[in-house]
């Protein structure tokens, strides 16, 4: 009596099944947590098997008891406190006005020097075009939480060090760490009037209040950030974070993208067209007066099909007019898989680029223009590799550019990958597959592809 | 170049539609096509059409809508609770009298609205009660007969409480895209929230 899509259980052994059923799709029965040994066995990494759900309520006491137990388990799980053992406690302070120097060091640079600083500063990663601090601390002006004595592994992928070796965190980084119980953020003393040791810790509620909505961090963007961080990805802000357009970095990106491979009808294309013309002198026949393929001598089906290809098609590698991606169809995060060795000071090219949409603000599909602009803000990544060369559908699925859309509906996130497929480039008639109708299996002998 | 072949003979359905007297309106053609489909593909019997007035403030020149009703050879829909009841009583679909069912003929591309669906349900003709008795089960044993009597009593009660669902209708949609391939898709539409079947 249960749903096929909901009922497959998750076992660590079967990767294929995990793709089919994402446990996070559905409200989980928190009683499962009771069986999780996470408190005593830290090496435990496998998830519990899901419980059976019922089709509809019935008046049995058994069902009422089970529901009550589920709610109690949920209540308990959500009551779990965020505590910091003295040994591991990392204390930070909230800096509402952005990065500031330590109390002992006065502001060094006058405000007028900021523009100059921004121009000369090459250390700032290109992917993070946000302004540099206006107070001469040397970190992003969007950072608002300072960790004076950083320790632990989290700062390998998060935060920016200033010249006093303090780590500054962006709002999403700080909130993520506080929420997972790894950071004890304090209210600034000037706000609450307390001193050092006795500063008031920020509650989860206070952290959401202060950090969501700050510097472009919407709740949807944070949900995507934290959802991927929980799975082990590293994320940094992308070029589309600020809604206002950053012309320079986009142009630079595009210049890099267009160079690598110029495909399409190159020299080979010209030659083949020349040969066609020689073989088929009567090809001048127009479609208004005769058959589309002309009345000439046709030596192969390929020639005929080529003639039939009268509908223009889109080639992703040809340069496109400059399109400026418009919010919300902009790349807001660069994402690195857990397996990618990521260095925060010199981030490698990202594994994924992602745009974040809220269903309540964007209730329609993107227009072709919006989607094209978004795709063209990402680099050209043509399909390559032995497998891609062999398998056409994999090539089509991979596309020439790709981007991920994270669609957030009131806290529920769905991820869609959009690839710029080049169907026109796949000349099916050139495939030397066994002719249909022969008894030999078409799968046993793989063609070498085009 | 081969000479133009003679156009193929129109299909029986096309002939039916073009010869029927009511065919001067496209809606009527849809109705006719679905009637035909119900009669010959799904083997319904006692088919008839009902014109119902659909009062709509937005469109004034809408012709009266045609509904179809008929008796399917097998039950098309059984409410989950009704099914459970039958299971407990040991009754099979075949034991029950066939039921007349209403069908809304529609075509792909037609515009509908909540308003229109509500209007159809509100103007749904009552099923004539003669339908319930017209085919009496002569060849069942006394035990089954008793069960059936009990079942029909329960069904009458359930109709009032809507515990086996409220009014329902079959929505038939003709595929007219790309010239149409004659496919008719059927959906059960219930008035109100009726829990889904689980099989």
């Amino acid at each position, binding site marked *: 009596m249960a749903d*096929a*899509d*909901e009922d497959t259980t998750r076992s660590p052994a079967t990767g294929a099944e995990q793709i089919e059923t994402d446990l*996070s799709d559905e409200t989980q029965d928190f009683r499962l947590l*009771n069986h999780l040994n996470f*408190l*005593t*066995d*830290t090496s435990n990494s496998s998830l519990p098997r899901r419980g059976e*759900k*019922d*089709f*509809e309520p019935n008046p049995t006491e058994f069902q009422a008891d089970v529901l009550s137990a589920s*709610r109690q*388990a949920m209540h*308990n*799980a*959500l009551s*779990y*406190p*965020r*505590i*910091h*053992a*003295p*040994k591991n406690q990392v204390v930070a302070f909230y800096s509402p006005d952005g990065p500031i120097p330590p109390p002992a060091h006065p502001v060094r640079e006058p405000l007028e020097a900021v523009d100059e600083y921004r121009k000369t500063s090459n250390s700032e990663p290109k992917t993070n075009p946000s302004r540099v601090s206006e107070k001469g601390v040397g970190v992003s002006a969007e950072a608002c939480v300072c960790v004076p004595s950083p320790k632990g592994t989290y700062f390998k992928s998060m935060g920016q060090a200033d010249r006093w070796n303090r780590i500054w965190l962006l709002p999403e980084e700080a909130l993520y760490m506080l929420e*997972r119980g790894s950071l*004890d953020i304090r209210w600034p003393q000037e706000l609450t009037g*307390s001193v050092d040791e006795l500063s*008031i*810790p920020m*509650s*989860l*509620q*206070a952290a*959401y*209040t202060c950090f969501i*909505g700050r510097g472009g961090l*919407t*709740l949807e963007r944070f949900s995507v950030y*934290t959802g991927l961080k*929980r799975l*082990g990805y590293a994320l940094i802000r992308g070029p589309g974070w600020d809604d206002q357009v950053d012309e320079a970095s986009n142009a630079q990106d595009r210049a890099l993208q267009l160079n690598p491979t110029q495909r399409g009808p190159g020299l080979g294309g010209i030659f083949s067209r020349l040969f066609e013309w020689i073989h088929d002198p009567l090809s001048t026949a127009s479609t208004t007066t005769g058959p589309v393929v002309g009345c000439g001598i046709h030596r192969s089906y390929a020639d005929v099909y080529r003639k039939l290809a009268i509908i223009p098609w889109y080639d992703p590698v040809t340069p496109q007019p400059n399109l400026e991606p418009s919010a919300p169809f902009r790349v807001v995060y660069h994402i690195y898989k857990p397996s990618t060795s990521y260095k925060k000071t010199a981030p490698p090219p990202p594994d994924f680029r992602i745009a974040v949409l809220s*269903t*309540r603000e964007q209730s329609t599909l993107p227009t072709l223009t919006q989607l094209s602009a978004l795709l063209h803000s990402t680099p050209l990544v043509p399909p390559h590799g032995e497998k891609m060369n062999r398998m056409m559908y994999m090539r089509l699925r991979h596309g020439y550019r790709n981007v991920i859309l994270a669609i957030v*509906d009131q806290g*529920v996130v769905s991820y869609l990958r959009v690839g710029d497929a080049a169907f026109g480039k796949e000349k099916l008639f050139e495939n030397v597959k066994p002719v249909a109708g022969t008894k030999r299996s078409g799968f046993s002998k793989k063609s070498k592809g085009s | 170049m081969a000479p133009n072949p003679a156009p193929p003979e129109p299909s029986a359905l096309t002939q039916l539609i073009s010869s029927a007297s009511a065919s001067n309106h496209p809606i009527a053609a849809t109705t006719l096509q679905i009637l035909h489909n119900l009669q010959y593909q*799904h083997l319904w019997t006692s088919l008839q059409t009902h014109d119902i007035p659909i009062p709509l403030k937005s469109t004034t020149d809408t012709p009266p809508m045609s509904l179809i009703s008929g008796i399917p050879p097998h039950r098309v829909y059984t409410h989950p609770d009704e099914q459970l009841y039958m299971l407990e009583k040991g009754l099979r679909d075949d034991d029950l009298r066939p039921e007349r069912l209403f069908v809304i003929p*529609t075509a792909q591309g037609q515009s*509908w609205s*909540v308003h229109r669906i*509500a209007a159809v349900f509100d103007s749904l003709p009552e099923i004539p009660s003669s339908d319930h008795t017209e085919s009496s089960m002569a060849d069942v044993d006394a035990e089954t007969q008793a069960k059936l009597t009990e079942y029909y009593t329960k069904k009458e009660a359930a109709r009032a409480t809507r515990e086996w669902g409220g009014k329902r209708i079959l929505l038939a949609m003709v595929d007219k895209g790309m010239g149409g391939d004659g496919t008719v898709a059927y*959906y059960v539409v*219930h008035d*109100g*929230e*009726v829990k*889904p*079947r*689980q099989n």
Partner: protein
Amino acid sequence: MDSDPPLPIPISYISNRYLLFSIDAVTYLRREHHICGVLIGTLPQIPQQNVFLGLPLELMPEEARLLVDKGVACIVDEAKAHAGMRSLLEGDRARYLRDLESQGQHAMRLQSDRKEQKREEALKKLDEKKAARARNSPSASAQTESSAAIVDIFNSERSNGNTSRDTSTSTASSRMGITPATSYPPLPPPSSTLHLPPPSVPASYPLFAHLHARGYFLSPGLRFGCNYMAYPGDSLRFHAHFLVVSYDWDEEIDLMDVVAGGRLGTGVKKGFLLGGAEKSKQEVENEADRVDSVRAFSIEWAGM
């Protein structure tokens, strides 16, 4: 669990969204008002997964509106409320810090007691097993306690895998730091000057409220491409019955959408439900009157 929070429950309005941070409020609203929301936060006890999530709970504007209209909740402008951190009374601040400190000490004591107890149990088990020449590993002792583990909220052994010997050496500081879930206290309960008007809701609200009034639990429907999922009971324990799509009374419904919804629903053993309110906003004095005029229709593939 059964301690009911005082009403009206404050719903945090933060950056255009509606959030709950109090576990008592979350449990109460779920149990008494069938409002589930969506958990979006990281659980500190198992932070590296997305299956079980924790506070805060995000409410749809529809959910927040329904609660406000029922008089159960109010909307609090959290940014304004937290400006109150600047004006905490010295006495309140000191008392709050003292409370935190004693809680931290309590947590510390609980943890070391627990570890001590666990070590003893493990040793005992080990001895027993040795005596019985059992070949099982002593780690089995941990298994027996698993069911009670979550209830003992202060038993936090962090990922560093401290051994029990460490505790005796790390008592230099005798208390745990605590990050509380909410800011009340130290902030006083939000005064009515911080309350905001009821949330504005999308056109689908009447259908939402209609289904809620009929006992359905509703959640966002993105996963199935609809407005809402409707559950016959708490979604903790029941599968959804309907994929819900709302239309305006005279809004055009493409029959293809009905077919697509009907097939999608049938494919996942759910019904497809569409509906809307007969009365428009102009015709009624308040949303509640529109809710009474909702008509809804369930659609399933006929299988013929």
